[in-house]
């Protein structure tokens, strides 16, 4: 029941808490059955890879990936601002700006005057959202820049993997070349974030400590 439960799973800073009571309203027979189920992250089971036919299509997805990431970082910045975590808010804002620059760059490179429209039914990602889009549940009100950068690192790595995968599945040489370039760019971003992380102090082990209990509201 401690509010200071550490939330950031992907980073090294936080150990995963076992799901002591993750079971839910299931009668015993069903619980037993679930125990036999292979636990598959929803991301893999739920979605399939985007259908990319040409370079234009690839770059549309590349644009969406960056734009979605930027939007999410901005939302993260808003959340952190609301919760008085200015430092991390600024960092997320910065990450949002960087992703936006990447997106703008793609528009420029492709000579597009406006963002490519999403296909009918929306963008299709292999994971639940774009590979560079961070997950809302990874936030914590006391998180530190180190945690934020770990989220960014994870996302850049996922983006790199996304394009590497496309290199394998490219329907043409042109697409393969473009995907390779994009993968290299993302690898560069990975490197940049890693260096940034090196310059960022690691949090103390009690970073999530809060002597006060949660507050009552409505």
């Amino acid at each position, binding site marked *: 029941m401690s509010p200071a439960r550490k939330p950031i799973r992907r980073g090294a800073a936080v150990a995963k808490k076992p799901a002591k009571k993750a*079971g839910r*309203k299931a009668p015993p027979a069903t619980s037993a059955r679930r125990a036999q189920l292979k636990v598959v992250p929803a991301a893999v089971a739920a979605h399939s890879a985007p259908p990319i036919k040409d370079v234009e299509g690839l770059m549309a997805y590349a644009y969406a990936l960056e734009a979605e990431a930027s939007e999410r970082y901005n939302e993260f910045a808003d959340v952190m601002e609301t919760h008085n975590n200015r430092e991390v808010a600024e960092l997320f804002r910065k990450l949002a700006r960087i992703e936006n620059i990447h997106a703008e760059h793609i528009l420029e490179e492709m000579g597009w005057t406006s963002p490519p429209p999403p296909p009918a039914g929306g963008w299709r990602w292999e994971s*639940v959202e774009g590979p560079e889009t961070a997950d809302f549940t990874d936030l*914590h*009100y006391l998180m530190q820049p180190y945690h934020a950068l770990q989220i960014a690192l994870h996302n850049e790595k996922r983006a790199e993997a996304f394009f590497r995968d496309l290199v394998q599945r490219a329907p043409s040489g042109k697409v393969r070349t473009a995907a390779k370039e994009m993968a290299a760019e993302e690898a560069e971003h990975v490197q940049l974030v890693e260096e940034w992380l090196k310059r960022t102090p690691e949090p103390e082990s009690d970073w999530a400590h809060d002597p006060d209990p949660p507050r009552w509201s409505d």
Partner: protein
Amino acid sequence: MTTPVKAQAAVTPQAFKSDYKPVWCPGCGDFSVLSSITKAFALLALQPENIAIVSGIGCSSRIPAYTTCYGFHGVHGRALPAATGLKLARPELTVVAAGGDGDGYSIGGNHFLHACRRNVDMTYVVMDNHVYGMTKGQPSPTTEPDWDSKLSPGGTGMRAFNPLVIALAAGANFIARGFAGDPNTTATLIAEAISAPGFSFVEVLSPCVTFRPEQREWKQMVRPAPVQSTDDPGRAARRLMTDDGMNVGVLYKGSRAAYRTAIAKAQRRPAELEEEFKI
């Protein structure tokens, strides 16, 4: 919360988010559900002024003001009747009721049953985290019987409520389960729910990072429902009764006609009604 919106503006999900920022805990699943709802509106190319979001009280019930739609943030447990009255009075509006498991299944439980029965053409999104968050972590109707808390030490000893089975038995026309960690799928579920006639019920598993941090594991536990949606309530009942609460997707889609549009066209002037009193 007033949020001027240009009617002709392109309907992006962002256009449905207000400049009033959520007070939810960082990490809360409700952020994603808010995104899903706004994405659903954009998918359906709706205009904010033609949508009303009606809620009760609780963390998730704060949602109306976070949008640029018309909102009604009422009293605890009464979102569904307020939404019903609004939809019957203004059938041309898109009406979405939203809230949490305590609001909808406990204090508002009776309305849940009758909203399913009545089958008014609206959508009910429940952000279920199996806990009362705003009052600091008491067990809700969907909480496991042995979940320990200050108010119910050692657990409530009460069997958890199965909202989907109850919705089906009570007559809801569309039943789906979403997961906050998968906002795009949830968006399509909500969009389909809004498009479906009659009362559509979308239960979204939405983790509470503050009082139920173990719910982070839901990310590994949810899966797309292994079977296609059915319009056979018997099959749906069997599935829902045996499901472990982690199957995501449209689980039942019926064909029951929505509650008749209430407001009739005027045929007589009010003054004509007094004829029957005349001696």
